[in-house]
């Protein structure tokens, strides 16, 4: 069960059980959804964007522990970031979940997702909400699905 406790670290189980910024965001001016058609996971990410800066962010929807905790931790980390900073952060996060290597300073609590790299089938879960958030931030309005190329 070593790999498992690495995957499901305490911080992940905690965010899964008590997701932060969960719910709709009435003042949102950007919204996008993310679907994983193969398992039915689906999230909506709400952003309040002012002058290219993410002032507020929330999400709702349903999914596995990994996708839900990743969405929750993402909302915490995106608060106050510029869109460019968000893109950078995602690049680091993506690097983390695909390789297990982290630059802990930027990722802070999200470093808990290092274990995902041992579970290639779950990488999609960890990045689902991120794809939706970035689509919203970029204003492309596209629907993110795990079927799209990263």
């Amino acid at each position: 069960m070593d790999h498992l406790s690495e995957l499901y670290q305490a911080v992940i189980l905690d965010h899964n059980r008590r997701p932060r910024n969960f719910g709709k965001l009435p003042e949102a001016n950007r919204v996008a959804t993310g679907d994983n058609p193969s398992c039915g996971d689906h999230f909506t990410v709400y952003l309040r964007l002012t002058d290219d800066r993410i002032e507020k962010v929330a999400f709702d929807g349903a999914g596995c522990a990994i996708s839900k905790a990743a969405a929750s931790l993402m909302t915490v980390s995106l608060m106050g970031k510029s869109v460019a900073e968000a893109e950078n952060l995602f690049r680091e996060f993506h690097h983390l979940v695909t390789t297990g290597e982290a630059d802990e300073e930027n990722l802070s609590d999200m470093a808990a997702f290092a274990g995902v790299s041992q579970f290639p089938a779950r990488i999609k879960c960890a990045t689902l909400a991120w794809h939706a958030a970035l689509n919203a931030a970029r204003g492309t309005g596209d629907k993110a699905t795990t079927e799209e190329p990263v």
Partner: protein
Amino acid sequence: MSAASSSWQRGVVRADFPILDQAVNGHPLVYLDNAATSQKPRAVIEAMQRFYERDNSNVHRGIHTLSHRATVAYEGARERAAEFLGAADASEIIFTRGTTEAINLVANSWGGAFLREGDRVLLTEMEHHSNLVPWHLLAERLKLELLHVPITGDDGLLDLERVDGLLDAGVKLFAFTHVSNTLGTVNPAAELCRRARERGIITLVDAAQSAGHQPVNAREIGCDFLAASGHKLCGPTGIGILYGRRDLLDAMPPFLGGGEMILKVGLSASTFKKAPQRFEAGTPPFAEAVGLRAAMDYLDDIGREAIFEHDRELARHARAGLADLPGIRLLGTPDGAGIVSFHFDEIHAHDIVTFADQAGIAMRGGHHCTQPLMTRLGLDSTTRASFYFYNTREEADRLVETMARIHKFFTG
């Protein structure tokens, strides 16, 4: 149970399946994903290997020795499939890539020729996407209306009282699954076909989950079409079977065009052979047919009645154990086939499947290509264990123990 079945319960058949003899994540593999695809006995793997090493040649077109051997092997597989599925004649058997292509063939060829704007097609709420999407595409093209037999609830039974009324609503074709891949429900196929036949309605039975797991006889069922996949019944990928009543096949236009299915080809028009060749354009999966034949022989050697009893007995046993876990929602009925689907209030199927995999257990979590059924049940996904004759009672026990541990891990 037969002597055969008691011997395979003692683990004899397991030795026929090389893949089962391995450790996954440090634990002996427990393969409970049989509804997605079955494993292959050595007899099947070796039949194809032998064919490639001795007899391989394209079929039909040639008259040299290898070509003749390959043609005899391919047509022999067709005859065996006719017997396996209770067709009246080998000419009622068309080899396709799988159940999905078989259903698309009927939708395109029969549906394209005999359905008209406003016609109705009856399906059910428990269909696999492969028996939904072909009809969606056709309905859009021809402006058909699709109706669905509802299920009664979590037990996943078809609401049989609704069937007659729906059939009477101007339905031309009734397509339904024999066994639900998500719930394990065994639908009363013969009874459903009888009701349709009395009304002159054409029937298609999706036998993907039944053909390798219980005796399936198209004539006894009384259906017009029946579809199955080789890979789910111990055969190779790349081959499936469409059974079609001869008189219907003879009246149907071609599906795909190409070599093998023509009588005469001019520059701008062609005429076509009779069934089954009319529906087999291009080089068919002939090596796969050799493997499929070995699979059918293998299964009938064990006996499909015995397999059915074994599978459902394991499912009942697993169900009984799982029922005790707190917060579990069990779907389907204990009278179903060897498939158990369940849901935990607070744990997502993907987390369960990942956890189980770490314990060496291969299961599936998701919508199982039955999204409308999920919607009907108010779920996004379930976790599914599906058994086959090479699974054991000990494996069912390991499943239950592991689910108990998972529940503790995520909620305790």
